[in-house]
């Protein structure tokens, strides 16, 4: 029994038809996992199977320490959304419910190479010249 019901899979597959360039999901799991750990890995596996433009790499936070350091990932489950470039997008926890849509949105934006923001926002963002770390706390429902 999958986590993504067949009727949802059909809809997700359709949305992912909008992808242009390949996107890589880099997922970090860990042994003796947290509440949603196993589900998170299963969910990204099922998601990655829904588009040939989506690829998936899975690492273990405890074992693959070099990879975790490379991505700056210090907790699991974690999912990095990237293409050839790492834009600094991370999802920590199980991307379920409303936040599953957030993950799809990020995949599509990366794939299209366009943030979809207003021109004014892009101009302002281009002027930022110091590191900015945004941590957005969300809930699974």
């Amino acid at each position, binding site marked *: 029994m999958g986590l993504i019901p067949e009727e949802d899979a059909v809809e997700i597959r359709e949305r992912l038809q909008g992808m242009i360039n390949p996107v890589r999901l880099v997922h970090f799991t860990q042994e003796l996992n947290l509440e949603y750990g196993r589900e998170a890995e299963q969910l990204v596996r099922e998601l990655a199977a829904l588009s040939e433009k989506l690829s998936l790499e899975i690492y273990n936070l405890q074992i693959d320490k070099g990879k975790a350091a490379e991505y700056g990932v210090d907790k699991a489950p974690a999912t990095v959304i990237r293409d050839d470039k790492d834009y*600094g997008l991370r999802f920590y926890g199980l991307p379920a419910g409303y936040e599953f849509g*957030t993950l799809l949105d*990020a995949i599509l*934006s990366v794939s299209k190479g366009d943030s979809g*923001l207003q021109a004014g926002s892009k101009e302002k963002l281009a002027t*930022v010249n110091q590191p900015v770390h*945004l*941590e957005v706390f969300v809930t699974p429902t």
Partner: protein
Amino acid sequence: MRLAYRFAMENDLIRADAIESAEFPELAAQYRVYAVPQTVINATAAVEGALPEAFFLDRILETLKPAATAETA
């Protein structure tokens, strides 16, 4: 959350994490997150709620050091 990801795409100095708060309660407690969404900026400032794009961006930029952005106004 979608906006934070989109902001990160526009500038290599910006990175964005979505954090499922029930999964990481210690971190949520550390930042005193009582309601979601809450956006923590550089571990020091916070913006509560889901705001429209331009307003959300301005709130984030306001929290940065004055020298951080070239004034475009």
